[in-house]
């Protein structure tokens, strides 16, 4: 049975969802969110690299380079690798094994989406890959500050019991003088924001973070994550 706060059946709700009924602000909010999504997707269909400004192009080039450095993008064209053109039909899994790139990705895929036995290893490996990208992003370069991608403070560790790990870490960090805010993102992921007001306490806080497995190379605040193993 419906509650007093909700329409009795789907009719009123669905009518409100397309604006033919009034008085259900929630349905309106849902409609607006879906319309916004549809608008974004329509706009994306016509997106072209020519629409990007020089700065935007540079930002995207920097992201591409980081993906390449992390081995996440194919390094060369298929014609150069094994004569496959983009017009070719999708290769079978056996054909895929002819490409080193695809071999590596297939292996990663097997880890990620394959047997349960290897999944923890795969998750750890993906975290390492993600962390590597983050570390690369955090490496000082000759680029002007505006071109350096933010996000370099998001670091990840894994723990069998993220909640316990977060509680323990928070206690240690606070003891070291840090301000800590934690957020449960979902059942397996927690986020921490760590700030250090007094410069003289920074090294002690960094030591705690290093002890927990984080690699910190910049100034606070730090945005960190703990994920379930």
């Amino acid at each position, binding site marked *: 049975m419906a509650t007093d706060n909700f329409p009795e059946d789907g009719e009123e709700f669905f009518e409100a969802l397309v604006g033919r009924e009034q008085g*259900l602000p929630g*349905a309106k909010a849902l409609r607006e969110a*879906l319309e916004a*999504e549809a608008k*974004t997707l329509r706009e994306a269909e016509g997106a072209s690299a020519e629409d990007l400004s020089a700065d935007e192009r540079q930002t995207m080039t920097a992201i591409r380079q980081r993906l390449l450095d992390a081995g996440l993008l*194919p390094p060369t064209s298929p014609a150069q690798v094994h004569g496959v053109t983009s017009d070719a039909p999708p290769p079978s899994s056996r054909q895929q094994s002819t490409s080193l790139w695809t071999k590596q990705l297939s292996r990663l895929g097997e880890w990620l*989406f394959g047997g349960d036995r290897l999944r923890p290893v795969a998750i750890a490996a993906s975290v390492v890959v993600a962390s590597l990208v983050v570390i690369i992003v955090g490496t000082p370069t000759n680029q002007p500050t505006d071109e350096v991608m933010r996000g370099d403070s998001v670091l990840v560790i894994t723990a069998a019991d993220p909640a316990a790990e977060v509680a323990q870490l928070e206690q240690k960090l606070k003891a070291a003088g840090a301000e800590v*805010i934690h957020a449960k993102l979902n059942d397996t992921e927690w986020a921490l924001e760590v700030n250090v007001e007094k410069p003289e306490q920074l090294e002690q806080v960094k030591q705690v973070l290093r002890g927990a497995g984080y690699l910190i190379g910049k100034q606070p605040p730090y945005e960190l994550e703990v994920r379930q193993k």
Partner: protein
Amino acid sequence: MEGEEFLRRMHAGDASVWEALMPALRKVALGACRDLKVFDQRKDDVVQDVALKVFTHWQSYQGDSKLNTWIYSIARNRCLDDLRKLRVRNESQSAAPDDDDGLTLLDRLVDETQSDMEHRLCVQEVLAELDAQPPARKGSMRMIDVLRWWVENGPTTEELAIFLKTSLGAAKERKSYILKHVKSLCQKYCGHDECAFSKKGAAHGH
């Protein structure tokens, strides 16, 4: 780029896939930021993280939805992470206000009020969970796709029945079932009965 072409190029190790995908990927990620009202200063982070996720998880893309729709779901989840952090930050600040007169990083994540953010978060959490549902059985359709089609076309129930290739009664039942599911998700994510989708909840500032 269509999903099939994306998968073909990735399987082939085609280096040009980035150039082909990048404009749309960027547009979708930035569009999601706009839709979820993630503040300007976080947009480049979102674009970068979405690109990372697309190229680390491309093998999980099955081609059963449009490529840009899949990318949007990644971007939505990324923006939701920011909003969740902001919510916790705001709750923490309201519980123990500090003396900082400067804005912190999380303060700048979004540019509207806490209650608006709560509402936005609730709606997007519901959509994200609907979007995370597995592909529908053969001949059926996921709830989120029914909702998208309904909002886009504004049909009648009779037209929905034709679209779903089912009877009028079954289409009505489907609508009722979707409403029930949306309601349960809303209650789950809002954390109380007077959720954002209720008449009363809206009157309470959602």
